[in-house]
């Protein structure tokens, strides 16, 4: 952001205090929703850590923000990226090591609230490719517009459309099967 004055000790301290206050306010208002977003994207038990890292990134890059309103989209984009990296990392690790998946325990806790008719849908959602899952979660849970989803995912609006359509097609099969059953 651009409230550039001479860098005296006082102005630097005031800028630091402003940044802390703005971040505290953002945290207060959006932390729970962001942790939920990270969980839905696949961060599971690391969701709070991922969101914490995103806030640290925002703290570091605060001066580069266009405006305070850009903070939330920035956080979303960082979270989407961090979760994608985490999922990729786990996929690689799981190829080499077999262990009891902690995520399954966390998933089991959140699944306790899921109704029987939703279980297949939730399982199918978890099985989607990362980009498809991101597009669907950002659209149907956060209710973002295509342009906002594109910004959060770092891709074009056309690609968002394609990922959403492919994800919906896969979930549609599950829903159809449920309709038949």
């Amino acid at each position, binding site marked *: 952001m651009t409230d550039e004055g001479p860098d005296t000790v006082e102005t630097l301290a005031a800028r630091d205090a402003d940044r*802390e206050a703005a*971040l*505290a306010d953002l*945290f*207060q208002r959006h*932390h*729970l929703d962001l*942790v*939920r977003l990270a*969980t*839905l994207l696949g961060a599971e038990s690391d*969701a*709070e850590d991922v*969101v*914490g890292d995103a*806030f*640290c990134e925002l*703290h*570091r890059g605060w001066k580069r923000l266009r405006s305070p309103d850009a903070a939330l989209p920035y956080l979303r984009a960082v979270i989407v990226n961090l979760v994608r990296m985490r999922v990729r990392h786990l996929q690689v690790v799981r190829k080499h090591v077999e262990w009891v998946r902690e995520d399954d325990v966390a998933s089991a*806790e*959140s*699944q*306790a*609230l*899921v*109704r029987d008719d*939703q279980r297949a*849908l*939730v399982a199918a*959602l978890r099985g989607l490719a990362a980009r498809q899952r991101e597009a*669907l*979660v950002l659209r*149907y*849970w956060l209710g973002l517009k295509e342009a906002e989803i594109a910004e959060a995912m770092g891709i074009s609006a056309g690609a968002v459309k394609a990922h959403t359509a492919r994800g*919906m097609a896969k*979930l*549609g099969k599950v*829903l159809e099967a449920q309709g038949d059953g």
Partner: protein
Amino acid sequence: MTASEQRIEEALRTMASGVRTSPDAFLQVQSRWRRRERRRRLVVAALATAVIVAADGIALWALSDAPPEQHIIFNDPTAR
């Protein structure tokens, strides 16, 4: 919104509603970003000091290496 979309939205909402955060989350994250900021400033200060020390060292070496009759800094244009 179609029926399928509504069902997806509902399933996501149900999944999300089970997620809770720890009560001291803010203090933890705040101490993390403060720690990182301190470390970043420390690294910048250390790098700046290293650059200054290196520049001083090079300058001292250049000055001490020159013959005493050769004036590196003050060149007297009238001297022959």
